[in-house]
């Protein structure tokens, strides 16, 4: 996943996509003591983020029963370190099969006749690969833009070249701060 720490520059130069400083990690919640202990571990880590990492965080649980840990920060290295530490805790506690995805948010500064909007790279923990996600509305995507993102960074990061596995994550909770 750390390959992204250099590939984001390519996205900015080639595509005009800037890291917004928001990223998230999501895993399926289950009941039980071991899972509860893992959650406590994660919360303890999150509670002691500062001053080592310049990050803010919040958690939320979606309607699918997935817990989201959303990070905000200025430096991509901090964001990646935050995500990796959480995923390490999940794996150490034996819940690696519950890890679903990490999501990185970008925004476009090129207008090209359309509104500026959020675009994402999704990291699938089952496949250990990135793929693009450019939602344009309710359950619609900009496939062409997703193709362009693939063309721009597929050589630099482990990329999911099989488009039939580009599963969307609708209604990402990265921005619902209310």
């Amino acid at each position: 996943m750390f390959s992204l720490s250099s590939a984001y520059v390519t996205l900015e130069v080639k595509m005009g996509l800037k890291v917004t400083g928001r990223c998230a990690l999501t895993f399926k919640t289950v009941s039980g003591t071991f899972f509860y202990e893992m959650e406590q571990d994660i919360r303890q880590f999150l509670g002691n983020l500062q001053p080592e990492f310049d990050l803010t965080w919040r958690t939320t649980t979606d309607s699918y029963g997935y817990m989201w840990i959303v990070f905000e920060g200025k430096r991509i290295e901090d964001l990646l370190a935050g995500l990796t530490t959480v995923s390490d805790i999940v794996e150490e506690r034996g819940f690696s099969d519950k890890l679903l995805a990490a999501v990185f948010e970008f925004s476009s500064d090129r207008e090209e006749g359309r509104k500026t909007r959020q675009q994402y790279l999704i990291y699938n923990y089952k496949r250990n690969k990135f793929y693009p996600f450019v939602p344009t509305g309710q359950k619609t995507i900009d496939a062409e833009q997703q193709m362009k993102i693939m063309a721009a960074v597929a050589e630099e990061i482990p990329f999911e070249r099989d488009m039939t596995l580009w599963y969307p994550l609708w209604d990402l909770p990265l921005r619902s701060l209310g």
Partner: protein
Amino acid sequence: MFTKKQPWQKRDTGLTARMIVSFAVLTVLYIIFLSVLAYVGVSAIAIAVIAGIMILAQWYFSDKIVLWSTGAKIVSREQFPELHDLVERIVARNNLSKPRIAVINTRTPNSFATGKTPKSSIVAVTTGLMDELDAEELEGVIAHELAHIKNRDVLVLTLASIFSVMAWYLMRFGMYGAMFGGGGGGGYGRRGNEGGAAMLLILLIAVITWIASFLIIRAISRYREYVADRDGALITGKPSKLASALLKISGTMKRIPTRDLREIEGMNAFFIIPAVSGSSFTNLFSTHPPVAQRVKKLMEMEAAMS
């Protein structure tokens, strides 16, 4: 339901298959015809002349043969005003001559260009292509076809087939000479079992030569496709539009799922199957490997232009 063969994986074959079969049948027919001529003792020079005339005729009538074999109909401005406008816009901007426009009434999205000279050429699109693509994508496809015309690809491929027929002819002639010991024009008197076997061998070699030349022509035409992609993209200035048209035509676009990852995740078996039958599997058996390659090149162009 996620791994079954999708219907669009086999949809792009019809039109191309009909054209290939038409021309293959024609080629086999004249190879047989020339073989018979040779067998009955017509002189080598006469056969060369006849073969030349036949190839010229095929080239001369290529547009009619293509129209006939695909069921494309030339359409007037009154019938398809938007299509005519679209073609005229591209042509005017790039100082090309306007081709005749034909439409094929089928849901399969496809297109082709044919014609002896840029002036007399035809660009044909299917109704399915017009339905499926947006205006800019259709423009990309038509620019690709116009690039074929500009590059005189019909002529290039005709020349390639002339060389392949010549290669076949030389081979057959060499064989003939070897078998009959260089005796000039003695074909008639030596018919019988030997002659029959020789004829069979000649046909066999002719078929092998034809297959080889078919592969060579395919290689040339694949290369011309890349060139037409590049030139077409330069005409419109939007490589990504042609790329997305190619993805739509090949059905790749529809394979990007819309179901949420979290819904899919519940089905445990799901991630095991694609892990095995993922990219390496589709690369081996994909019906359209060139589309991915063409899209990749176009996207590289797009990245370089932006």
